[in-house]
């Protein structure tokens, strides 16, 4: 097979195209099968009732109706156990509102520190980026220890803030989501820092020099040169952050458990889709829910990009 391909390659008129297509073919095939085919199959599945074993049964829009009813009942204040999708959606929106701005801001700050000519900055760059190279499951497991009632975070807080009472972060419904958000911010800021660092190094030095001649201090240079010049990168990071946050699964799965932990505080839409598909055995409803999630992600990122995504230069 290999020899026949190489003779085909020798005879090919445009070698670059053949080589290029061959090199990307694996990625393209994987993307077609696991990306697009899965997506369209999920759409198809959302009109069916199925239990994996028997025949698929066409039910029209019934699966979507289940999701909408869930949302309406949630808005009327039903207990969280009865409205899993609403609970997951509410949590995930709050989580996104916390995580995305903070991680973006933190990434810019870290990047501008890393961009200074200070001795040993390479060390800081590496240590900021390290969380991004670690498995999120391991990170979550370690943070569970840190967040325990007699864990390290409480220990530090008790000594730093006078009169602080230790909080059971993971087992208290008021704090669980914030604990998860903290881990997410810790884990992703370093990753986005690298993006910002690359963008910062692409900013022409002359602009800074001109500003310095005009007497702009470091803070004004940061706000009036760095931030505006970073705008395309900020849009990119926010969009990626939005997608990641709205789909959050791994951290909630480990830190809160499949049922979302106390009071369902750590329940997310992705967890609900999983539960619907594999514990309640309603893959059709799960597919309908994933299309809802897709619609939410698509509209938010589309609107954001439309508003801020236009190139500056």
């Amino acid at each position: 097979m290999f020899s026949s391909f190489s003779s085909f390659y020798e005879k090919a008129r445009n070698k670059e195209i053949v080589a290029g297509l061959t090199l990307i073919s694996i990625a393209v095939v994987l993307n077609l099968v696991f990306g697009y085919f899965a997506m369209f199959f999920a759409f198809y599945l959302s009109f069916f009732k199925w239990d994996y074993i028997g025949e698929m049964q066409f039910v029209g829009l019934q699966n979507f109706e289940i999701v909408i009813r869930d949302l309406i009942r949630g808005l009327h204040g039903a207990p969280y156990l009865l409205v899993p999708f609403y609970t997951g959606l509410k949590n995930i929106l709050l989580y996104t509102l916390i995580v995305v701005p903070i991680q973006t801001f933190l990434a810019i700050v870290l990047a501008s520190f890393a961009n200074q000519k200070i001795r040993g900055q390479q060390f800081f760059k590496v240590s900021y980026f390290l969380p991004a190279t670690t498995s999120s499951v391991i990170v979550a497991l370690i943070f569970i220890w840190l967040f325990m009632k007699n864990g390290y975070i409480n220990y530090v807080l008790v000594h730093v803030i006078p009169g602080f009472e230790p909080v059971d972060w993971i087992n208290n419904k008021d704090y669980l989501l914030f604990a998860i958000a903290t881990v997410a911010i810790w884990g992703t800021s370093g990753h986005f820092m690298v993006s910002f660092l690359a963008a910062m190094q692409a900013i022409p030095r002359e602009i800074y020099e001109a500003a310095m001649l005009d007497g702009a201090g470091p803070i004004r240079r940061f706000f009036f040169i760095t931030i505006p010049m970073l705008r395309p990168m900020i849009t990119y990071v926010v969009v990626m952050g939005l997608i990641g946050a709205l789909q959050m699964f791994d951290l909630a799965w480990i830190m809160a458990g499949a049922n979302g932990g106390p009071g369902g505080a750590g329940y997310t839409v992705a967890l609900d889709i999983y539960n619907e598909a594999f514990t309640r055995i309603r893959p059709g409803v799960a597919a309908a829910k994933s299309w809802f999630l897709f619609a939410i992600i698509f509209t938010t990122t589309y609107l954001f990009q439309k508003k801020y995504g236009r190139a500056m230069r």
Partner: protein
Amino acid sequence: MKKVLAGGLLVFVLLLAVVAAGCIGGGGQTGTQTPATVTETKVKTETKVETQVQEKVFVRFAGWSAGETEMKNYEKMIKAFEEQNPNIGIKYEVITQMFHENILASYGAGVAPDVFYVDSAWAPIFIDKGALYPISDLADQSFIDQFYPFLLEPFMKDGKLYGLPKDWSMLALFYNKKLFEQAGLTRPPETWEELEEYAKIIADKTGKPGLAIYLGGFNRYVPVAVSNGAPKPWFEKPEDASWFDNPAVKETLTWYIDLYRKGKTERENQGLTPYVVQPSDVGAGWLGDAFGQQEVAMVISGNWMIPFLADQFPDFKYGEDWDIAPVPAGKEGRVTMVYTVILGINAKTEHPQEAWKFVEFLLGPEGQKELVVKGGQTLPSIKGFENDPDMWPQHKKTLSFKYDQMIVFLWGPKSGPLEGKFSDAMAAAMRGEMSVDEAIEVMKQVVQEELSS
């Protein structure tokens, strides 16, 4: 990676489908060269008879694993089986997490294993959909008669039997003898009220909580309700939610939930040692861990705790340091919960006879002697081992307890999802997020919703 998750996780099903297609498609045509044209004629005449007889059949067997020992024991048994049956090969696949979810997904993709574990709580889903091969069509009645009849009941439907249990466990009270002595207690508690009283005495006298329970855990609450006169829970249609209206159910549920609220929350507010805790309150992962670390004096747990204690806490000795007693009794008698797992045969298997041969080998007297009795993981599901010299004394003692009712973990066709939601509601009430009445209302609505349509 995250994109894949958003696709609705159904990608997983597809992944299996692709793998399956690969397996099926790639099976036959790998050896394309034909160098043996000359010698072929010679060989053919000699081996023709043998190849027809020895066409090897492969049976895929999937299970989860309760630890390394279990896996090693199964591998040993598979080896022995393959030696006895040279024409059958066994492919052992261990799925460590989300076992039933995985099996269901593999059904969706058409690549389900031939033989696999099924927990009693999941059995109805498999049986109702026709996923399991009726064992009664394969096994002799005399083979089936060896098993404890109450273990078979959950796997019967329309006169057919769909699975034979590989082993079983039942709840018992584990108590720490040294802490009992320190508290001046001489015997294990007999009733539920006494259990709470003992827990309080132990906390006051030793400074360690008397009892550890799980927050939620509907299956741990059921023996309390039934022993106090509630009917056995069964949820098959939306109207079955009325089980929660039974006064015995309401009363015992309030007692069970208050156990934690009074024993932990209220006691701590008064500045006293809590007498009821959950494992994480004492820095333990589960009941067995809390008990083994001797952080609590009593837990109600199953036989799976015994090999764990023997393995993890060798200095904490059965008989000297701890002992087991029957689950406390209620007003109407003594009730315990039974947990069992069958070896199910895939209804769509291509080799039902071979699969059955393997199941018969594992579940028969010799197989259970090796796997269950000597291994000491759990209790053997066939009768006659009660006085076996190889039986661990702890398991022997559990078997000697007399109960008025033994309830197998199964509350109708949707036991698995219901158990999870009930437990969530109970946990919320125990944490004080909702009242007992609200929790009951939620559980009723859960029943109505899960079972309607």
